[in-house]
C-alpha cells in the first residue's frame, strides 16, 4: 500500500467519523441556540439511541428499523429531559442547566448499565465487502452510515429552514424576547427542539455503536469532540456544526500516525481551546460574545 492511499483511507475513515461527530454537534448547537446552554447529556442521549438500535437489531430489525428505534428512543429521552428538568430551569443561570444536564447524563448512563451491564455489545458485521479504488477501500457499511447521516442532516436543515416550526425555532434562537412578543408559542418550539435534538443524537449514537461497540460509556466520550466541532463550526450555526465535525473527524484520523490512537480526544481539546482563543465565533458562526 503506498502512502497516498494510506492517507486517503485515513481521511475517508475520518470523514465517516466526522459526519457522526457532526450529527452530535448539530444537536448540541440546536439546543445551545434555542435553550442557551451546552447540553452535557448529549453523549448519553447517543448511548440510549445506540442501545435502542441494538435492541431493534436483537429483535431482528434491519438498519432502517434500527435507525427508527434509535430516533424514537433519542426523542423520548430528549423530551423527558426537557419536561422533567430543563423546563424548570428556564430563566435560571446557565450553570444550573449545565449541571443538571451532567446529572441527567449520569442517570441515563447508569440506568442503561444497570439493565444492560457494562459488557460491550457488537453489531455483527458479517463479511465486510469493500470497493477498492486504487488502494482506497470504501466499505459498504461506511457508505450506508454516511448516507444515513447526510439524510438526517438534510432533513434537520430542511425542518429548520423550510417549515413554520423551524422558522419559529430560529426566531427564538435569534431573540427569545422578541419571538415571544410576536406570539411564538415557546412550548411548541421547545417540543420540536428536544424531539429533533434527541432524534439526531439517537441516530449518531447508533452509528457510533455500529462502527465501534455499544457500551454505557459510548456517548460520554463523544461529548468533547462534539463540543469542539460545534465551536470550530460556530456555536449556534447548524451547518457549521456539521462542517466542524467533518473537519475534526478527518484531522483526528490524519493525526493518528503521529499522535497515536489514544490522543485523539486531546486533539479535540486543542482544537477547542485554540479556536475559542483565536476565533471564538467559529468558522461559520455569527459574532457572538463568548467571553
Amino acid at each position, binding site marked *: 500500500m503506498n502512502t497516498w492511499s494510506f492517507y486517503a483511507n485515513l481521511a475517508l475513515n475520518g470523514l465517516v467519523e466526522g459526519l457522526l461527530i457532526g450529527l452530535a454537534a448539530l444537536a448540541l448547537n440546536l439546543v445551545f441556540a434555542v435553550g442557551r446552554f451546552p447540553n452535557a447529556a448529549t453523549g448519553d442521549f447517543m448511548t440510549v439511541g445506540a442501545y435502542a438500535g441494538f435492541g431493534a437489531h436483537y429483535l431482528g430489525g434491519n438498519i432502517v428499523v434500527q435507525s427508527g428505534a434509535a430516533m424514537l428512543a433519542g426523542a423520548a429521552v430528549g423530551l423527558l429531559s426537557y419536561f422533567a428538568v430543563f423546563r424548570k430551569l428556564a430563566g435560571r443561570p446557565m450553570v444550573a442547566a*449545565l449541571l443538571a444536564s451532567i*446529572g441527567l447524563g449520569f442517570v441515563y448512563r447508569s440506568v442503561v448499565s444497570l439493565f444492560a451491564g457494562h459488557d460491550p455489545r457488537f453489531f455483527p458485521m458479517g463479511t465486510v465487502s469493500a470497493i477498492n479504488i486504487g488502494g482506497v477501500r470504501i466499505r459498504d457499511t461506511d457508505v450506508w452510515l454516511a448516507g444515513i447521516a447526510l439524510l438526517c442532516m438534510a432533513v434537520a436543515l430542511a425542518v429548520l429552514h423550510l417549515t413554520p416550526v423551524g422558522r419559529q425555532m430560529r426566531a427564538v434562537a435569534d431573540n427569545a424576547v422578541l419571538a415571544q412578543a410576536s406570539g411564538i408559542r415557546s412550548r411548541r418550539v421547545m417540543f420540536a427542539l428536544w424531539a429533533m435534538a434527541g432524534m439526531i443524537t439517537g441516530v449518531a449514537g447508533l452509528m457510533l455503536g455500529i462502527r465501534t461497540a455499544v457500551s454505557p460509556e459510548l456517548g460520554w466520550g463523544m461529548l468533547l469532540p462534539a463540543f469542539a466541532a460545534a465551536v470550530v463550526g460556530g456555536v449556534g450555526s447548524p451547518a457549521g456544526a456539521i462542517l466542524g465535525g467533518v473537519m475534526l473527524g478527518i484531522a483526528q484520523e490524519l493525526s493518528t500516525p503521529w499522535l497515536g490512537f489514544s490522543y485523539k480526544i486531546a486533539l479535540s481539546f486543542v482544537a*477547542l481551546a485554540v479556536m475559542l482563543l483565536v476565533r471564538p465565533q467559529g468558522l461559520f458562526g455569527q459574532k457572538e460574545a463568548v467571553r
Partner: protein
Amino acid sequence: MLGYLVALLILGGIYALLTISLDLQYGHTGLVNFGLVGFFAVGAYGSALVALAGYPIAVGFAVGICSAALLALPIGGLALRLRDDYFAIVTLGFSEVVRLVIVNEEWLTKGGLGLPGVPRPFAQLGVGGAEAAYLALVVACNVIVVLVIRRVVGSPFGRLLQAIRDNETTVVSLGKSPPGAKVRALVIGAAIAGLAGALYAHYITFVVPDQFLPIVTFYVWMAMILGGVGRLSGSLAGAAVLVLLLEGTRFVRDLVPSVLAVEMASIRLILIGLLLIVFVIYRPYGVFGSPSRQ
C-alpha cells in the same frame, strides 16, 4: 469498626479539601471549574512519583501541590477569556487530557496499570497508630486550609472575588482588575486540590488513572451544592454527606445481598445524578442556604 470509622474520616477530610477548593473557585469567585479532578490527579501522581523515586514524602507533597498550582496558570489564562459555559467544557476537557497523558505516558506513570506501593508516612507507629496519625495529618491540613481560606475570603482580596462573582462589570468600573484575582483564586484552589491528591495517593498507596474520572469532579460539585455554595461549613458538611453516600451504599449490599457490586455502582451513580438534578432545581443554595444570600 473503629478502623473503618478512621478510614471514613480520612476520606471525608480529603473530599472536604476538594470541596473547599471548588467553593473558593465557584462559590466565591464564580469560576465554573469542571476539571477539578485534573488538579487532584496531578497532585496525587506528582507526590507519588517523587516519593517512589526515593525522596522524602514531604518533598512529594510539595511537588504535588506546586505542580497542580502551576498547571492552573494556563487554565487561568483561558478563564479570563471565556464565558462560564465555555470555561466549564474547556476545564472538563483539560481534566480528561490530564488523564489521557497519565494513561499514555507509560514510561513515567506505568499507564493504566497504575503505581503501586506509594509510601505511607508514620509506618513506624504500627497499623493503628499510623492510621490515627494520618487522620491527624488530614485534620491538620483541613484546619490550616480553613483558616487560610477564612482569611482570604475575609480580606479585601476575598471581597474582590465575591464582587467579581456578583457583577464583574461593576468591579471593572470601580477600577479593579478581575483577571489577576481570578487567576489567583484558581491557583489557590488548584494547590488545595493538589494537596488533597497527595493525601489521597499516600493514604490509598496506589494510584491508577481510573481513580481520576470526571465523575469525581461532580461528586465534589454535588457536595458543594448540598452543603451550600459559598459557605465553608457547608463544604465540610457536604463532604461528610458525600462520603456517607459513597460508602453507605456498601451497607445496602449487606442488607440486600442479591444486589451485585456493579449494579450497586450503577444505583449509586443514579442516586448522585438525581441528587444533583433535584438540588439544582429545588435547592440551589444547599440544604441550609437561603436564596437571599446571592
